[in-house]
């Protein structure tokens, strides 16, 4: 039943032997030890398991591991480089956009995906980008601020 699956996660190649029904979320957390990706319902409702597949947000609890063969998966562990937080992560910390932190990996990933596509997003575009991820702590106020702060940081870095 099990088959070998080749995954590229955060730029690194992995080969795992998994049954076909095993989700990307399970493989990330249990086979690869990338527990930064969280689970909140495993039904595709809450969005906290969001990862990026080829730069686009995907609910890892609804994606089978074998479906992403040949695609690039990015998890929260892939954002910070050389111990330096990604500008999106810095903006989240400085804006106070996290409390319990459980939705935070997903929030920073959907923010990164948005800002990679739209460097100067409107308020509506920001809301749309984060709408798929629940946050139960912050009331989203500081998350929206953080996304705009991150956009400014990235624009400044490019300028």
């Amino acid at each position, binding site marked *: 039943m099990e088959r070998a699956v080749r995954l590229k996660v955060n730029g690194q190649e992995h080969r795992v032997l998994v049954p076909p029904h095993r989700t990307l979320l399970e493989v990330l*957390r249990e086979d690869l030890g*990338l*527990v*930064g*990706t*969280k*689970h*909140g*319902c*495993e*039904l595709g*409702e*809450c969005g*906290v398991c969001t990862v990026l597949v080829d730069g686009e947000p995907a609910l890892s609890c609804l994606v089978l591991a074998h479906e992403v063969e040949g695609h690039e998966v990015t*998890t*929260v*562990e892939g*954002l*910070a480089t050389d111990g330096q*937080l990604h500008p999106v*992560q810095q903006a*989240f*910390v*400085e*804006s*106070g956009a*996290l*409390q*319990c*932190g*459980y*939705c*935070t*990996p997903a929030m*920073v990933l959907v923010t990164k995906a948005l800002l990679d596509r739209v460097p100067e997003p409107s308020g509506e575009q920001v*809301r749309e980008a*984060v*709408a798929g991820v*629940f*946050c*139960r*702590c*912050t*009331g*989203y*106020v*500081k*998350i*929206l601020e953080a996304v705009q702060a991150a956009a400014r940081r990235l624009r400044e870095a490019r300028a």
Partner: protein
Amino acid sequence: MRVLEERERVRNVVGQRLPRVDGWAKVSGRAQYTDDLTLPGMLFGKLVRSTHAHARLVSVRLERALQVPGVVAAITGRDVPVRYSVFPVGQDETALAVDRVRYVGEPVAALAAVDPYTAEEAARLVEVEYEPLPARMDLEEALRNPEPRIHDYGPFGNVHRLASLEFGDVEAGFAEADHVREDLFFYGGNTHAPLEPHSALAWWDPGARKLTVWTSHQGPHYLHRGLAKALGLEEHQVRVVVPAVGGGFGGKLDIFHHEVCAAKLSMLTGRPVKITLTREEVFYAHRGRHPELLRIRTGVKRDGRITAMHVEAYLDGGAYCSFGPATLLYAGTQQPVTYRIPHYRFQGVRVFTNKPPCGPKRGHGTPQARCALEVHLDKLSEDLGLDPVELRLRNLTGPNELTVNWLEITSNGLRACIEKVVEASGWRQRRGRLPYGRGLGFACSAYLTGAGGSIYYSDMPHSEVHLRVDRSGGVTVYTMATEIGQGSATAVATIVAEVLGLQPQDISLVTSDTDLTPIDLGSYSSRVTLMVGNAAYEAACRARDLLFDAVAERLQVPRSRLVARSRRIFDEANPEVGASFAQAAQWAEARFGCLATSGSYRPPQKLGTYKGSGVGPSPAYTFSACVAEVQADPETGEVKVERVWVAHDIGRALNPVLVEGQVEGSVHMALGEALMEEQAFRKELHRGPSWLDYKVPTVYEMPEVITFLVETDEPRAPFSAKEVGQGPLLCVVPAILNAIADALKVRVDEVPATPEKVLKALEEQRKGRTGRVGPTKVPPFSFPPPERVPRPQSWEEAAQPA
């Protein structure tokens, strides 16, 4: 007071908009939550849950489940028969049902297997035989049908607890009134829905005869006691460790079935066992807001001054005690904290029903009564032709007074809070003058900064902190303060850093480990900033004393001139004379030996001596006021909250970013309670134990939030810092309801105020009846005569004619 002097000297980090100390770990995905942990040889546990709301448990057979390859152990209620509860008076739960099940979802068996799939498959093979009993699914049913009783304790029938208290002479107070009004209100139950499902990992070390439980929990001390009792162990054989917690809101404070079962399964197998609940199971674990029916009767003079108030509360407690005895009393304690009520009667009853147990949720027991009161006051102001704000202003409490129910108010910034939101929202110019469909609503509230009494009686401190300074200048603080996202770690680090002249990020924290950290009672009742904060402050001051002594001696500087700032200790009159913090630590270690200090905090003695007076007292109260602006659609019944102005008397914000975050999060949770969230049942089943059916506000529903932090001097709080985690939620729910009334001229006297209810109220109005939906009667029940409690002397003096 040392604290007040210190307040004058704040120069370092208190009040700064600094990043939270756990920010890096959380934003980088490195923070470890319980389900992220694995141990060698770990098994995965699964609970089997009742499919009946009320039944005699005839038999639970494990044979078929145990035959599944990979299943290592399975247990039933006979293996864990000891009753427990956090509340000493309510020892009514077992880890697995023994002979009766009392709600759908109550665990009846548990097993451990080599992987989660095997555990789940085997759980389906556990054979359970039930003999159904009639299920009571709401207050009225449970009161009308005393037999069969859901529990064999409590005063009678399905009544769990009763309260009946009178302060002053309520009938005399009503006789003085020019106008008396009575209203009914129903507050629907709702649940915490933290994003992280509950999870526990237990490991029994047979050699050391020691159990370690890592768990997503907000009260490790009570859990520690509960686990020892449930498992028949000595307390020193149990260690509870709390990793990062993905939200609590009161929902991770009880002793939970999966925690006891994981531990028992580990003891049986000698292997670590982890049980993580599914999202559906989190709805069964519950302990959320009690559905509550309220009747409030208030007498007022023509000018709006309150002469008497009578509050009746009917609480639907679900199937077990949980924190119910406190929840019941909280329904009556806080009304006199915001308003002067010369004569006050509170009567309440908590009833058992066949639903998951209700318990403490953000605001614990007070939001229901607060909401009912604030809606009631709005109607009273209409009766009197007074502006709703004006009615409140004429009855406000002030600083340094005793309420009629013997609660001691120290700092009180309510008036300033009201002024802020009234002015910012344009209340005086806009209220009542907006087009049909748009409205403004107002409400006030108060909350405790920590419960004055512990849940089990003791005269020991409620919070203790150890602090260590090492010779490299490192500072480590050991505290059981449990970080659930509210920012307790940052609060403690900020206080210690302020005293020692460091930055919060310089402080290493060892938290929430019952083997390593001294007592703190838990992250509930908004107690941590004040209580752990005071203990940490004391420990830090003692460490600073040692450092100052050593530096004064070495540098021959008068000790009184030394200050700790910018990671140095130096002569304030001559700043270049000084030492780095690390140098000072080395001199102090050379002088005194190992540098370790401790601090502890015990709240002041309560003043009331009546039965039930242990619930309500707090070292300090916070106050909040809110104006909400809504756009309500008379065609669809949909209510959109567009803007919320909240002012909160914080005392002083240790870190304004975190404080604002608590206010904004409170608005989010209040919005859900006001408009959409409900832990509802269809026949015996939860109506939808998933996030598709249980609606929480998303980013699209969130209004603009305008927060004002009002500062007051609070001598009992560290640097004056009072709570913010719960208080600001309370006023937002009734402000929204009052705004709906202003917008559509109909009343929804029930939360959640769903579009369906709004439309029904409008339809009533169109038919020429009162435009109102909400309860019209109370259940058949008579309260025992109230215990008459004498009022504090100050009230008797005030009553004397001048």
